[in-house]
């Protein structure tokens, strides 16, 4: 019962400290020839928390040995923050993962913590978010909370690169030579800070929230300099992160066995990539939207269906993305054997490209602390979203021990 002011008994320092964590091993191989290993790693997280009356400290340290992605091997501090809780407000300062939004497995307003696509989206969703060094202040009202976040240090999204099996070479025409400059990231300064404000209300039968995030795009726009040289085309990429403002709105409303959810993010001034390798990214406004339905019919079934898309305003034909894109997800899970065995299927489907990613997963709790997991990730269809990973269709195994 750490943290609850119900006992007058003296609490010792040992009782105020809690150590826990997990260690997992994961292995995956391509189903298609040449049946290479795509994932091979051991990963552990040690979590230490200390409850000192109104203060709460938390540190988590990751240690990983990755046989497929060298850059992942090492020890680093995942989160380290200090929290103060007062009557009517609280504050958390330090390295932390901040997650917004109502969507399941899709990021709409959830853009405070940048994504880590080292293993594309095949990692557990919680491990796709990178922590940010930030200060978070919340004013807590009767039914309405106001949240203010200041992020003084920019952190970019992580994309697979180098020898990573998820780093795929782009299609480059024969007579085109491509070079790339270093990514231009914003310097650390007060004016380059990111600021987020969110107002959330929790009523009986309805949750709503509105937000604004003055941020940098976590993904750089790939600006290009194109020169012609003896019948060949030289393209020099100059990746650069740009400022943008994102207005968000989200809600969820339960009704009987259902929960209806919705989320929109209006991007003011986001760069979109061109279809042609010699084109230029264009700055546009866009609306990213999602509607979802959770159904809990009982008997440990859970069904979540979502549909969403991106609408680009003032769209131009040279852009890689359509004016309106549409995608959907369906997540079905069933618990069996007294909730020790979970079977689930998560399907992502891109309507325009007819590409899909389907994760079929089974998880069995051998003991309360030791879980064995196995599954198949199937990539298929066409296009650049999922279809290009078709050769990475894989079968995987994982063992996770929590302590």
């Amino acid at each position, binding site marked *: 019962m750490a943290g*609850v002011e119900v006992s007058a008994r003296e609490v010792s320092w040992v009782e105020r400290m809690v150590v826990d964590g997990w260690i997992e091993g994961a292995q995956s191989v391509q189903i298609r020839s040449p049946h290479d290993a795509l994932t091979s790693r051991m990963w552990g997280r040690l979590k230490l*928390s200390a409850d000192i009356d109104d203060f709460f400290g938390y540190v988590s340290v990751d240690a990983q040995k990755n046989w497929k992605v060298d850059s992942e091997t090492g020890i680093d501090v995942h989160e380290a923050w200090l*929290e103060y809780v007062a009557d009517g407000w609280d504050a958390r300062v330090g390295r932390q993962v901040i997650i917004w939004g109502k969507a399941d497995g899709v990021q709409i307003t959830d853009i405070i913590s940048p994504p880590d696509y080292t293993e594309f989206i095949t990692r557990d969703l919680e491990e796709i978010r990178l922590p940010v060094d930030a200060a978070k202040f919340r004013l807590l009202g009767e039914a309405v909370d106001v949240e203010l976040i200041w992020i003084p240090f920019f952190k970019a999204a992580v994309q697979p690169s180098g020898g990573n099996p998820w780093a795929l070479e782009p299609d480059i025409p024969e007579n085109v030579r491509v070079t790339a400059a270093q990514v231009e990231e914003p310097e650390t300064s007060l004016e380059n800070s990111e600021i987020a404000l969110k107002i959330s209300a*929790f009523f009986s039968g309805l949750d709503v929230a509105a937000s604004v995030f003055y941020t940098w795009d976590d993904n750089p726009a790939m600006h290009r300099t194109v020169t012609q040289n003896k019948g060949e085309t030289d393209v020099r990429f100059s990746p650069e992160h740009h400022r943008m403002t994102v207005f968000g709105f989200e809600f969820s409303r339960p009704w009987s066995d259902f929960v209806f959810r919705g989320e929109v993010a209006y991007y003011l001034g986001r760069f979109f990539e061109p279809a042609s390798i010699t084109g230029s990214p264009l700055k546009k406004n866009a609306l990213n939207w999602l509607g979802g339905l959770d159904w809990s019919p009982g008997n440990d079934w859970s069904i979540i269906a979502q549909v969403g898309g991106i609408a680009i305003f003032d769209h131009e034909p040279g852009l890689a993305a359509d004016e309106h894109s549409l995608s959907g997800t369906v997540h079905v899970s069933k618990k069996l054997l007294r909730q020790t065995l979970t079977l689930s299927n998560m399907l992502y489907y891109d309507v325009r490209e007819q590409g899909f990613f389907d994760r079929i997963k089974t998880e069995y709790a051998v003991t309360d602390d030791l879980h064995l997991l196995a599954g198949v990730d199937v990539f298929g269809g066409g296009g650049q979203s999922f279809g290009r990973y078709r050769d990475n269709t894989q079968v995987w195994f994982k063992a996770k021990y929590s302590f």
Partner: protein
Amino acid sequence: MLSKTSAFLLASAVLFFAGQDMLRAETMQMMGREIMVMEDERPDGDDRTSVMKMTLINKRGSKRIREVSSFAKDYGRDKKMVMVFEKPADVKGTAFLSWEYDDPSREDDKWLYMPAMKKVRRISGASKNEYFMGSDFTYDDMGDRNVDEDTHVLLGEESVDGHACWKIESTPVDLDDMYTRKVLWVSKVAHMVLKTEYYDKDGLLKVYRVLDFGKEGGFWAVRYSEMENIVRNHKTVMEFRAMQYDTGLQDRLFKVSSIQRGRIR
């Protein structure tokens, strides 16, 4: 052949005894409801905290442990509750917040915080028939069911483990309820259910027994109980400790912002 007078007297007698039976049944139903209201309104303070440990025992005797810290506060006839999962390790820190309304026509509000996802999700309020953490208790078994969601008939008086009890049969008003009926034994002294038999369409499904109870902080409380699933040969032993009443739990504990922190303060 009966004379007209004899026939009239016989008919009157039949009607009288039938009327008596109906009156008796109505009285038993009234008494059944009164006893269940008494049980429902048994004093348990304005707020309460406890640590609940569940031991799930399967037919081979192997055990799994679930441990939950629980905080609840009354708001008139409604109740707000927070449960924080302590064990097993993979769900540690999961927090469940519910605002439970006495009015059966009003859906409860429920939120779930999952530490791995680091966010709070609204969950639907209607799925009360799901089993709690793989145990033999459904959410409804553990919750505060409105008395008028069932009709209650007093069957008689019996003792359970030496404790004098009223024996009540409760039949759900909602025909889609997972149980077709329950038989309950309510202590005459503690006004607490000491035993329940749960029946479904196939017959006896589960038996709930209180193994130890007594006064905690001046209020009658269950210390040990068990729920045995007869059909599946599975049992859950529930133990309550660190029970405290009227400690003045603050309202802020029962807000979404509280479980969003990943700890309760």
